C-alpha cells in the first residue's frame, strides 16, 4: 500500500536541485542533494546551510491562561520567559517520560509560539487542546513554512536580507522584515550546534525566500541526512530515538529543562515521578560514546562492558564528518556513565572498543 505523502512549499525547489526525496513523518523530504551528506555537513559547519523544516509543527497559544496551560504539561519556566525570548522544553507524561521536545517562545504578554516535531505534532497539539480553558486558544500554522539557516556565516547572510536580525542573540525571537518579501518570524536558534536562525514564513513566499538565500555564495541546500549528523555531533537528542515516553528528562541528561521554580511544587505532568528519580538518582543515563576505528555503530547496537555484559543500547549512531570518526549516543547504567569509562559496542557480533565521551562531541558555537 502506498500512502500519499504531504509536501512542503519547497517541494518543487528540492526536486529542481536534484534532491533525493524520502518519506519522513508523512512528508516527502530531501535526505540529501547531489553534494552528498558528508559535504553538506561540512559546508554547514564551515559556511551556511539552508534546511527545509516545514514539516515541523508551528502553533500559537494565546490567551490569559496560555502560560498556565503550558506549564501543566512541561517542566519549563514559561512564566519567567521574557517577551522576545525562546526556550527548549519537553512535553512530559504522567509516568515521567517525554512525549516530545519542543521550542517555545514568548511573543507577547499572553502569547506563546511553539515549534514541535513533525512526527508528534498532531498528538502534541491535541494534548494541549485538551487543557485549554475558555478564552485561551491554540492556532496551528499549517500555512507557514519553516526554514533553518545554520552555520558560522548564517548571520551575515541573513542580515543582508533582514537587517534587523543582526541585533538578535541566541534564543531571541523577533518578527522582522525581509527585503522584498515582507514580515517573517525568526528565532536565533536551530538544531545543529551552530549559530543560525529558524525562520517561519507564509508558505506562498517560502520558495522565493529560499531561492534568495540559496543565491548567496555562502549558502548550500542541506538535507535531513546532514541535519541528523550535525545534531548528533552537537549531542542533541532526537525525539523517537534518544528520548521518548520511556526515557525521563533526568535519564536523558535534560535535567536543565526542569526549572528550579517548577521543582518547588512539581506541578506538571509526571513531576512527582521525576522528583523521586532526582532524589534517588536515575538508574540509567544517556551518554555519548566515541568508538575506536572507523566502523560506525548504528541505532539498536548493544552496549557492553569490557567483560561482555550487555548494559545498554545505542539510540543514535553514525559517522561524524567533522571528527572523521564514528560516534554514538545510548543509555547505560549510571555507574557506567562516567566520562572515560571503557565500554564496547557490539557491531555485527564483534565488540568494538568505545569510551564514554562528554557531549557535545563538537563544541556549540551559539551567538550569546
Amino acid at each position, binding site marked *: 500500500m502506498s500512502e500519499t505523502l504531504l509536501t512542503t512549499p519547497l517541494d518543487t525547489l528540492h526536486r529542481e536541485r536534484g534532491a533525493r526525496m524520502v518519506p519522513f513523518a508523512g512528508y516527502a523530504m530531501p*535526505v540529501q542533494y547531489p553534494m552528498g551528506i*558528508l*559535504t553538506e555537513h561540512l559546508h554547514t559547519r564551515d559556511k551556511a546551510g539552508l534546511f527545509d523544516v516545514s514539516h515541523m509543527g508551528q502553533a500559537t497559544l494565546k490567551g490569559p491562561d496560555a502560560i498556565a496551560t503550558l506549564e501543566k504539561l512541561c517542566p519549563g519556566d514559561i512564566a519567567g520567559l521574557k517577551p522576545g525570548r525562546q526556550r527548549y522544553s519537553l512535553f512530559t507524561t504522567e509516568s515521567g517520560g517525554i512525549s516530545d521536545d519542543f521550542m517555545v517562545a514568548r511573543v507577547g504578554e499572553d502569547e506563546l509560539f511553539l515549534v514541535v516535531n513533525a512526527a508528534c505534532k498532531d498528538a502534541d497539539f491535541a494534548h494541549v487542546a485538551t487543557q485549554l480553558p475558555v478564552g485561551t486558544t491554540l492556532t496551528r500554522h499549517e500555512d507557514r513554512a519553516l526554514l533553518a539557516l545554520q552555520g558560522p556565516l548564517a548571520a551575515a547572510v541573513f542580515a543582508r536580507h533582514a537587517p534587523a536580525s543582526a541585533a538578535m542573540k541566541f534564543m531571541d525571537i523577533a518578527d522582522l522584515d525581509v527585503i522584498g518579501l515582507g514580515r517573517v518570524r525568526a528565532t536565533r536558534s536551530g538544531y545543529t550546534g551552530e549559530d543560525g536562525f529558524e525562520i517561519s514564513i507564509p508558505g506562498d513566499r517560502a520558495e522565493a525566500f529560499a531561492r534568495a538565500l540559496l543565491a548567496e555564495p555562502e549558502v548550500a541546500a542541506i538535507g535531513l*541526512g546532514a541535519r541528523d549528523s550535525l545534531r548528533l555531533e552537537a549531542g542533541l537528542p532526537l525525539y523517537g530515538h534518544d528520548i521518548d515516553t520511556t526515557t525521563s528528562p533526568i535519564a536523558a541528561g535534560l535535567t536543565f529543562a526542569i526549572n528550579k521554580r517548577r521543582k518547588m511544587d512539581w506541578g506538571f505532568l509526571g513531576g512527582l515521578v521525576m522528583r523521586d528519580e532526582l532524589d534517588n538518582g536515575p538508574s540509567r543515563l544517556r551518554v555519548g560514546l566515541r568508538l575506536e576505528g*572507523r566502523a*560506525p555503530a*548504528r541505532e539498536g547496537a548493544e552496549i557492553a562492558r569490557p567483560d561482555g555484559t550487555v548494559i545498554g543500547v545505542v539510540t543514535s549512531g553514525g*559517522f561524524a564528518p567533522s571528527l572523521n570518526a*564514528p560516534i554514538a549516543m545510548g543509555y547505560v547504567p549510571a555507574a557506567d556513565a562516567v566520562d572515560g569509562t571503557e565500554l564496547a559496542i557490539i557491531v*555485527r557480533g564483534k565488540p568494538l572498543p568505545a569510551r564514554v565521551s562528554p557531549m557535545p562531541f563538537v563544541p556549540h558555537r551559539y551567538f550569546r
Partner: protein
Amino acid sequence: MTEIRYTQDHEWVRLEGDIAVVGITAHAADALGDVVFVELPEPGREVTQGEAVAVVESVKAASDVYAPLAGRITESNADLESSPGNVNLGPEAEGWFFKMSLANRAEFDALLDAAAYAKLVEEA
C-alpha cells in the same frame, strides 16, 4: 581481454585471467552515498556464492557485499580501510573490494552482462 559481469546485488566482477576482481557498481555507490567505512574479507577465506563477505557503510547505512562466485579470497583492497571514499570516487576502478579465485567458471558466465545489468538498473 577482460570480461565484466554484474550481479543482482549491484556488484561488478571483472575476470583477469584466473582471478575475479569484485566491487560495487557506480549505481550502488551513488545510492549508498558517501562511503565512510569498509570491512573486507581475509585473504585465504573460502567463500560460497552469495555469502556476505564484506560490509560497506555510508553516512546513512550499512550494506553487505556478497561473494558473487564460489572460490577463495586472494586479496583485499587495503587502501579502502584508510580511504573508503575511493568507493565513491572510482567504484569500478580504485574502489574495488577484493579479488578471488573461481571454483567454477560457469558461475561467472551466468552473471549479468552489461546490457542486462543496465536494464536491471533502469527498471529499479
